[in-house]
């Protein structure tokens, strides 16, 4: 891997290698919980925490883990952090915990967490792994919050729970099909902007 600066390492997760919009990893919670901006933000922060912590621990212990049990060891470490997050959320943010429900334990199988562990943390130093985890976590949170905000805005005409107009929005955006439609359009717009930058007319 070519050496990159810390700043680049952090920033790549937000736009260039955004886990949701570009790498298309971790789509299950992305589509499942983003019915409101708060849900997206909460889910994003929880995942970001797991990402940073598991990246850190895995980069620290990478040298003492034999190759053959690499994946099981990573999963145990990730699962432990997910359980920690779940307990903490049940204790201190019970309402959000109930909203997100099953999707919190499902962070364990979120591809982006294991993906970064395998692709980055297991071959880089602790510091750059933390930065990578932070960047990816922020990118994931950004994506989920954006998607949640769009769906909330169109679906219930409110943002972060604040209602603008006292009327019904387009319900479909709160339901599952709305998640697919919104995500599709965000990705399309991002690709369009990228192409435009590349070939200036």
């Amino acid at each position: 891997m070519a050496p990159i600066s810390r700043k680049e390492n952090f920033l790549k997760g937000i736009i260039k290698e955004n886990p949701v919009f570009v790498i298309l990893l971790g789509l299950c919670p992305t589509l499942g919980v983003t019915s409101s901006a708060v849900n997206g933000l909460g889910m994003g922060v929880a995942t970001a925490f797991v990402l940073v912590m598991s990246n850190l621990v895995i980069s620290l212990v990478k040298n003492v883990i034999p190759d053959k049990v690499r994946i099981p060891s990573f999963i145990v470490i990730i699962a432990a952090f997910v359980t920690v997050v779940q307990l903490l959320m049940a204790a201190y943010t019970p309402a959000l915990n109930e909203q997100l429900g099953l999707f919190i334990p499902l962070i364990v199988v979120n591809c982006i967490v294991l993906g970064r562990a395998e692709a980055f943390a297991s071959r880089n130093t602790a510091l750059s792994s933390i930065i990578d985890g932070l960047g990816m976590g922020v990118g994931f949170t950004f994506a989920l919050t954006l998607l949640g905000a769009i769906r909330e805005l169109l679906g219930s005409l409110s943002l972060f729970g604040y209602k603008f107009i006292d009327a019904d929005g387009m319900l479909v955006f709160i339901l599952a099909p709305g998640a697919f439609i919104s995500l599709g359009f965000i990705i399309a717009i991002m690709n369009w902007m990228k192409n435009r930058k590349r070939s200036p007319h």
Partner: protein
Amino acid sequence: MSAGLLTVSPSPHIHTELTVPQIMRGVIFAMIPALLFSIYNFGIGALYVTGLSVLFCVAIEYAIARYLLNRAASIYDGSAIITGMLLAFNVPSNLPWHIILIGSAVAIGIGKMSFGGLGNNPFNPALVGRVFLLLSFPVQMTSWPVQGATFSLDAVTSATPLGILKEGIRSGTPVDTLLSEMPSYTDFFFGLQAGSLGEMSAFALLLGLIYMLYRKIITWHIPVSMLVTIVVMTGIFWLIDPTRYASPLFHLLTGGVMLGAVFMATDYVTSPFTHRGMLIFGFGIGVLTVLIRLFGSYPEGVSFAILIMNAFVPMINKFAKEPRYGVVKEKRK
């Protein structure tokens, strides 16, 4: 699309004397009886909704083609007019204008242009718009105005026969009792029932079907296989337990079956090429419609069934090839 001199399109290349605008004009003609009937039935509201819907669809298609895709606008082939009319046929006649605007934008924008315009869309655009509206505005989309309330945009609402049936069966009322409170089958046939703008009168829709068959715009395969499947399937359930399932005739004459069979499922772009494929396609729509009606949570399932089968069309085309170069009437692109 525009009938240029050099058209490159994937095979099969089937020759036909009808051009796209001619076909589209024929379809529009065929829809006129149903439109006239709904104006007679629902009054000026029906005309208002249809006009707005057509206007929005054409305008949006023009705008997208011209300003987003930077190419010649394809509105003169008439396909946007058909989409607009079909969308209007699938909604209540008292729908507010902003919902019609959203429906048109989704039908043309998401259902058609995002795939590349006429000929490339896998799903029937009008149905994409309709289902989007149904999921988005369930209250407005299922408040049907009472027929005969002429010149009023917000008449009293009532449930469709299918809605009453589903509700009633769920609370345990026998079908006979429910049917006795509804209009007769003759009334259903001529369209004296609550429902979407263009779906009520089987008679008017059949006139359109006959016209299109006569002009050889469509073949009989899809409508017939779809209707026969529905009759056979509902018939089996009806014979098993007539207190819980309504008769095949009821299912044939209510809801969107006729509209779907005549105008929606027969859309060129989103149905199979071959006659064998069409029979399979119609059969699939029939089965899904009956399953949704009898066991699903929605009272009506025609639009979902057609959209689901639209997704299978590429597969049907692959496996239901005609063995020889036939006299098929489809025209692609």
